[in-house]
């Protein structure tokens, strides 16, 4: 029941929100709801057994019997931290967007809760069709969030986002149907959409022959997830969506939605099509490396600070992809860790950019300069988050990137060498941006604000501190004590890496009973 509650409580919240009569308490209510949700997820974490690679808190009941489709939820080490990330970020987002969302406040928070439900659903679903339903459902609220509350080119951006993702996932649907057709071999005659049955399938693979079932299915899934991640040649929707999205939209997009793609690789692509994944690993590692360098180079020349961070996401996601496809313990652990890091540090960056945008209504780097003297607290927070983003030791980013580099070195030293250039480039564009925005002579925006007392720049408010402090605590906590977090996923990742050719997730015994209830 725990997992169902996690998914359906936000939907209930969304409905309550839509009919809430008082306009001025909507934000308080939403914040309260999101905190309840976070506490619930902490309760879930409490019950989670980190030492086991098994699928826990399983809930399974028949949904569409004719096709063996079930309402099948479960959690293991791969998804547990992503669920926590989702529930952790939502209250922060609501608090962070307190002033920036000023029209249709109810609609916004309803959309946000439905989005949360859909994202949690896709992390927890263990049935292919259920997963697909949540996966597609998550597009709709995001589409509205960008399209209604976004910037000037929001309609173009939101349509592009929706159509790109949809186009990718239609192929995945066909692949799911095809896989379901194969399942009677392993279930003894019954068609099934459960991922556990999919894992048992032995899909024919011939290296070098592109038209074998496994290769085609592999690419059908991989393209869907690659668009979501996004991987280098398919990334063009991301900068548009990020720049046009309102601050909370960008945070959810960068923080959680991109992880749905990388999670998809880890949950579906690699274990389901191990031979193909291994055979084409070089391709994905290659596009990962290209993504790292390309994203960093493009980020370097962006005049718009939000676009810069958006391209830095392309670069960071390249790391995660490499980590996943080198397929060793270091790489996969690092990738999983980096997913969390990216969610926290890029989320924090977008929030910070949103805060400064609220004050100056500009994101152009060239108009800033010398902000450090005017907004000291803001500057400190920004610099800390920047450090995390460029993976300075003691921050969370370092742990993830270091593990991925270790993993990629074991895969191929050349890959590691190229990936390392990304670290240097990343430091270059981020620090250069920080220098131009916060230090040096005062830019036109700052001098204007000094002369115009009505629009004077104020340093962080108490609310903004409350938004940033949890994120900054997480940055250091995850940087100094990575084991506190990695322990939850260790067993599952080890199990995956060791048995990837013949992968299956056992169902944990203590929760199997609750499942059968």
């Amino acid at each position, binding site marked *: 029941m725990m997992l169902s509650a996690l998914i359906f409580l936000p939907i209930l919240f969304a409905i309550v929100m839509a009919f809430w009569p008082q306009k001025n308490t909507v934000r308080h209510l939403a914040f309260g709801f999101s905190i309840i949700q976070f506490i619930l997820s902490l309760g879930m974490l409490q019950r989670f057994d980190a030492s086991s690679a098994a699928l826990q808190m399983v809930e399974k009941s028949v949904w569409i019997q004719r096709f063996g489709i079930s309402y099948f939820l479960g959690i293991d080490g791969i998804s547990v931290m992503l669920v926590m990330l989702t529930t952790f970020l939502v209250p922060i987002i609501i608090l962070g967007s307190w002033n920036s969302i000023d029209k249709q406040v109810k609609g916004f928070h309803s959309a946000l809760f439905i989005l949360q439900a859909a994202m949690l659903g896709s992390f927890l679903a263990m049935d292919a069709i259920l997963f697909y339903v949540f996966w597609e459902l998550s597009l709709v609220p995001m589409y509205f969030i960008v*399209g209604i509350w976004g910037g000037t080119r*929001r309609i173009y951006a939101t349509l592009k986002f929706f159509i790109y993702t949809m186009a990718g996932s239609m192929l995945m649907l*066909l692949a799911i149907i095809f896989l379901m057709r194969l399942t009677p071999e392993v279930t003894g005659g019954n068609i099934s959409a459960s991922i556990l049955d999919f894992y048992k399938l032995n899909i024919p693979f011939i290296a070098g022959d592109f038209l074998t079932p496994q290769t085609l299915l592999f690419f059908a899934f991989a393209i869907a997830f690659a668009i979501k991640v996004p991987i280098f040649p398919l990334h063009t929707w991301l900068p548009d969506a990020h720049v046009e999205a309102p601050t909370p939209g960008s945070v959810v997009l960068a923080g959680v939605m991109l992880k749905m793609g990388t999670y998809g690789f880890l949950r579906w692509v690699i274990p389901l099509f191990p031979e193909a994944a291994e055979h084409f690993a070089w391709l994905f590692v290659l596009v990962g490396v290209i993504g790292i360098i390309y994203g960093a180079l493009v980020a370097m020349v962006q005049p718009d600070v939000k676009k810069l961070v958006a391209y830095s996401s392309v670069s960071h996601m390249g790391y995660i992809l490499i980590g996943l496809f080198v397929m060793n313990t270091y790489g996969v652990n690092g990738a999983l860790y980096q997913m969390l890091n990216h969610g926290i540090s890029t989320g924090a960056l977008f929030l910070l950019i949103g805060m400064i945008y609220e004050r100056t209504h500009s994101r152009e780097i060239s108009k800033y300069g010398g902000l450090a003297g005017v907004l000291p607290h803001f500057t400190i927070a920004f610099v800390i988050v920047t450090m995390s983003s460029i993976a300075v030791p003691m921050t969370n980013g370092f742990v993830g990137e270091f593990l991925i580099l270790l993993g990629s070195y074991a895969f191929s030293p050349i890959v590691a060498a190229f990936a390392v250039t990304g670290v240097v480039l990343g430091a270059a564009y981020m620090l250069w941006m920080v220098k131009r925005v916060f230090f040096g002579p005062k830019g036109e925006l700052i001098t204007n604000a000094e002369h115009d007392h009505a629009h004077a720049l104020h340093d962080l408010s108490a609310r903004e501190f409350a938004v940033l402090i949890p994120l900054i605590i997480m940055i250091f906590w995850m940087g100094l004590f990575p084991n506190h977090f990695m322990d939850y996923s260790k067993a599952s990742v080890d199990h995956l890496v060791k048995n990837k050719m013949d992968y299956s997730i056992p169902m944990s015994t203590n929760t199997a009973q609750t499942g059968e209830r």
Partner: protein
Amino acid sequence: MNISMADILLISPMIALFLFSLIPLTIKVLRGNVEQSPTATIVEALIGLFLTAGLLIVFGGSGKTAFNGQLVFDGLTQWMGLIAVVSAGFSMILMYENPATRGKQFSELIFLAMNSILGMLILVSAVDLITIFIGLELMSLSLYLMIAMSHEQKISKEAAIKYFVLGSFASAIFLYGVSFVFGSAGTINILDLMENASTLIKTSKVFLFGVSFISLGFCFKVSIAPFHAWTPDVYQGAPTPVTSFMATAVKTVSFAAFLRVLAMKPLIGSDNLFLVLQWFAVLTMTIGNVAALVQTNLKRTIAYSSISHSGYILVGLITAGISQNSVFAASSVVFYLLAYSLMTFGAFAIVSLIEKNENSVVQTDDLAGFAKNQPMLALCLTIFLLSLAGIPPALGFFGKFYLFSAAVSEGLLWLALWGVLNSAIGVYYYLRPIVVMYMREGDCDISDDRRFGTTVAIVTAALLIVVLGIGSGPLFEMIERSLM
């Protein structure tokens, strides 16, 4: 030929429908050509439809044949008939409230609509090719008049003439095909042909010719490319409620009859016909979706969308035509038609509500501001459009899922692939009205008077789409059991 009591019971839905259709006209004649109030007319008509639906449920699904095997009452009759009756009933509510159709000649309009539904019921139950023809003509002739009767000035007359000419042409082709079938097989009863159609088509060129012509006739009726050209013009020109009637009920029953013809398994015997129909399906999906991308008129957009959906349904029909046990594919077709009718009705109903007078034209851009003024209706339109686009968990998604599952299980992977790729194209034009509604400033609103019935119908359809979508499993099994 003796007519037994059992036959009468079986066709009781049709008898009830016909009797009820006479009431408004009779009253008008008795009163000396003075129309009774439209409200009374619509209430009588809806009672008639309820009764028809009830009788269809009670007597329809027994699998018995009536009139020496001319009509058959099986699960297909029952389901397709119910879908047609329900969506026609919804469309009649639109007729009652739309400015282009309400007014002086409302009793005649309802009389024609109910006779058209009568034709539909004959069409879904007929297994004799000539009886199919009779049903087709009864349905179509009423429809030509319904289109032409609009109060609107010019465009609907053009639509009616166009539809009449092309429709008659299609009927002629159909009839020509029937004559060839009779000449080669000696019978025109589908049940008799069922056993040897697939061998006959191999040995007899004349039979192949006949079956091909019959199929082409149906392709005209259900707007399969390259015979789709009339659809956008007629759908746009006809008054919106009549368009909704055509796009939902008429299309459903035409597909039902087409399904019966293909269930003779001619495709198993003839690779060429099989190949041609596959290309028709691909062409239809692609043309419908690509042409819809560039439309600015909302009705025309939905018309092209309806063409593309014909393409998806044809995939299901082909699947049913080549599989040994066609129940699964046929059920997926029935399910899809149910979904399609609800969604398409909903989209047209919203257009109908926005039309201010009989000559108004609704462009997609006119929807700006609709979400602000009518949040609930905008939400409903969003549900219809997302369902048409195939976004889960709406009914449209499960329709596509079952349809393409059937196709994949029969090895028609490439048709399914075309289907899903086309769905991705379709997303663009389905999202555009949503964009305009929610994201642009404007003052689009519905006309104030007479909108209660339409609103109720729209909300019902939207709820059905969501609820049946989530609970699609039992519904599908129910359809499948009744088609066994």
